[in-house]
């Protein structure tokens, strides 16, 4: 039976699905009050984000005159946002959709998903942590989150732990001694399971520079990058960077990532030179975060999986 049929049979189910509407409303209200601009950027683009491990959805744009162009669904709206920051839009946010192909469809993952991104100018990742705490508390509406029979204490400030501290505490290893190829093994098998167990939300921050992605190196300690992930109730909700504005460094990371994509047989596409151009023209110091809205809604609705909050989940639509 499809979701719409189940709802028709049992209208009480609607309560869970309507949580999304409230969450979106709360997000808009929160950022409007903070003076952010809501922006609208394309989900179909000529060049997608360069993620070494993500596969993209590709299509083709054809005009009536026979012009053919490669076109992709975004895996993240981040490049467009940074171009707007360069343009001088100032603090901004967007609620949009993103797409990832060749992924496991699971409790927390679906190929099409809703994402919230916000950027603060003249701010760093510590400011975004505070934004996140405040926004999450507004969404839940109280200082306790009840989720799947457990209670999570949301009182501010939430615990913050660096990678260095976490690796020492949970894996009993000095992070400097861990080889790059063992980093994720230790993170996923020794550190993350402990982080996911806590009954408090937690910010895991200061990634080793090898995992910097689009984050800038720490000034005092360039072996680490100003990046964090936030976890609530065993769910990773967001990934934040103090944004890298050095175009040369960014270009170099992109080249490495593209080479990695190629070596893994992923779809090949060029670097978004327009994005590099935007960095060249000067992007203000900013910090931004991407948050999975479906996961936020899942927690707020006390639903076991993200699909339980979506009227037309991919697994049902495509019979996965």
């Amino acid at each position, binding site marked *: *039976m*499809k979701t719409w*049929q189940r709802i028709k049979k049992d209208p009480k189910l609607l309560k869970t699905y309507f949580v999304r509407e409230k969450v979106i409303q709360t997000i808009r209200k929160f950022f409007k009050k903070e003076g952010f601009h809501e922006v609208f950027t394309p989900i179909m683009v000529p060049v997608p984000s360069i*993620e070494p*491990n*993500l596969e993209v959805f590709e299509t083709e744009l054809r005009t009536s005159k026979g012009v053919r162009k490669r076109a992709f669904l975004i*895996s*993240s709206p981040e490049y467009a946002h940074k171009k707007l920051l360069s343009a001088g839009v100032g603090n901004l946010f967007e609620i949009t959709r993103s797409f*990832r192909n060749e*992924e*496991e469809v*699971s409790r927390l*993952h679906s190929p099409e998903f809703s994402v919230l991104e916000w950027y603060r100018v003249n701010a760093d990742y510590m400011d975004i942590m505070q934004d996140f705490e405040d926004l999450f508390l507004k969404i839940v509406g109280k200082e306790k989150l009840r989720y799947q029979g457990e209670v999570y204490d949301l009182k501010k400030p939430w615990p913050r732990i660096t990678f260095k501290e976490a690796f020492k505490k949970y894996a009993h290893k000095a992070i400097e001694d861990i080889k790059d*190829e063992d980093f*994720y*093994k230790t993170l*996923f*098998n020794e550190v993350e399971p402990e982080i996911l167990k806590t009954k408090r939300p937690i910010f895991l921050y200061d990634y080793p520079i090898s*995992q910097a*992605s*689009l984050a800038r190196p720490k000034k005092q300690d360039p072996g680490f990058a100003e*990046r964090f992930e936030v976890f609530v109730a065993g769910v*990773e909700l967001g*990934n934040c960077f103090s944004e890298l504005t050095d175009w040369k460094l960014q270009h170099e990371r992109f080249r490495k990532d593209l080479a990695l994509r190629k070596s893994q047989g992923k779809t090949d596409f060029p670097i978004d030179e327009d994005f590099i151009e935007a960095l060249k023209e000067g992007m203000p110091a900013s910090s931004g975060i*991407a948050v999975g809205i479906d996961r936020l809604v899942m927690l707020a609705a006390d639903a076991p999986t993200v699909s339980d909050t979506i009227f037309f989940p991919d697994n049902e639509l495509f019979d996965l």
Partner: protein
Amino acid sequence: MISVNAGNITKGMYLIFKDKPHLVTKTEFMSPGKGSAVMRVKYKSVETGAAIEFTYKTNEQVEVADVEKREMEFLYRSGDEIVFMNSKTYDQANIPMSLIEDQVGFLIPNLKCWVLWYKDAAIGVSLPPNVTLKVIESPNEVAGNRINAPKKLVKVETGMEVMVPIFIKTGEKVLIDTTTKEYLGRVK
């Protein structure tokens, strides 16, 4: 040593984890947006039956357990063990039920299958792709569901429950896929 790329690990493989043979019971491929692609694997120890989870980077090499196959027939169930016999030598093999839970529902007397051995211990069984089973219990009236293919749950001779089309009646024989438990057809 034979090894497999962690990205290609699939359910049902026998791999060496912490120097011991383990059966893969579940895999989950994950590529975090800004991170490395990983494969989360659920294992069951073929020695103790204990379940454990481990996460690999997809490009890591994982050692494959050197498992040997021998053709045997299913004999009977004895407590928590399943007994097989080599029909030529009459050698017997006992496999703990906990290691072949997913396959027990297909074991009909004298079914020929491959018993898997690791260092002289029988640790599992590889079944033929499909098995014919007799339906012993079936609900007569099932409310018609016009949207999805109309199916119902029936019990077969081994006690296992499978989904079959609603026209199947008690006493009929059905061909079932041993990997997916899917109905493949009616056997006359």
